[in-house]
C-alpha cells in the first residue's frame, strides 16, 4: 500500500542528514551520531528491498534480513570501539574536538 519510493526517499534523506552531521560537526561523539543515522538509513533500504523481493515471489526470502542483521552487529561493534577511542583520546589530550586531533598532520 505504501510505494517503495517513499521508503527510498526517507532513507536517502536520513542518509544525507547523517552525512552532514559526519562532515560538519566538531565533536567526535556528534560525528558518531551522524554515522548511526547513516547506518539506520541503510537498514531501511535493505528491509524495503527485502519486502519487495518477498512480495514478488512465493518462496521465503531471508537474504535481506540477513544483511540487516549483519549491519546491526557491525554497528554495535563500531560504536563500542569508537566510544573507547573517544574516551582514550579524552584522557590523553583533554579534548574531543576533531579539529584539534591533528597528530597525524604532515
Amino acid at each position, binding site marked *: 500500500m505504501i510505494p517503495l519510493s517513499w521508503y527510498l526517499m526517507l532513507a536517502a534523506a536520513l542518509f544525507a542528514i547523517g552525512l*552532514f552531521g559526519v562532515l560538519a560537526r566538531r565533536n567526535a561523539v556528534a560525528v558518531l551520531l551522524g554515522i548511526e543515522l547513516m547506518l539506520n538509513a541503510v537498514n531501511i533500504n535493505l528491509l524495503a528491498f527485502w519486502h519487495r523481493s518477498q512480495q514478488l515471489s512465493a518462496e*521465503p526470502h531471508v537474504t535481506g534480513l*540477513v544483511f540487516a542483521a549483519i549491519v546491526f552487529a557491525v554497528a554495535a561493534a563500531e*560504536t563500542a570501539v569508537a566510544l573507547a577511542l573517544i574516551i582514550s583520546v*579524552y584522557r590523553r589530550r583533554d579534548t574531543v574536538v576533531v579539529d584539534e586531533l591533528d597528530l597525524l598532520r604532515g
Partner: protein
Amino acid sequence: MTSLQIVFLIIAAVTLASAVMVVTARRLMHAALWLILTLLGVAAVFATLQANFFAVVQVLVYIGAIAILIIFAIMMTREVMSVTGPRLNRGWGWAAAAAAGGLAGLVAVLSTWQGFQTVLEPLPSGSVGVGALGEAFLDPNRFAVPFEVASVLLVAAMVGAIYIAVDRKVVEEQ
C-alpha cells in the same frame, strides 16, 4: 490516501525532524536524546515493512544498548561537552552542499529505475516468520559463516574496546 500511508508520513516526518535536531542540537546530551526519538521512528518504519523482528531488535539493540552507551560516554566527558564555541566546522557550508548534492544524486538515479513506483503490498502471514531467518543463519550451506564471523567481530570489538579504554595510570598504581 490510505490510513497506513498517513501513518507512514507522520512517522517519516518525526524521524527526519528529530534527525535534523541530532545534527544541529547545541548540547550533545540533547542530540543523544533526539537520536533515541529518531531510532524509535526507524523502528516504526520497520514495523510498517512487516519486519517485526527487526523493529524489536532496533529498540533492544539501538536504543537499549547503543544509545545508552553513547549517553554514558557523553557523561564521562562532560566538561568538554559543555565547551563553548561553534558546534559546526568552519567548512560546514561545503558539508551541507555535499549532503544536498548526494541526496539530489540519489533521488535522480533512483527515479530512473523502473521499479521505483512499486507498491509494497501486505505480505501473507507466515511468510515473514523469524524461524526461516534463524534456520538460514544456522544452515552451513547458507549463512552460518557470516553469522560466526559476526560473533567473532563482536567479541573482538568488545576486547579491543576494553583494551583501548582502560586507564593505564590507574592500573599501574594498583
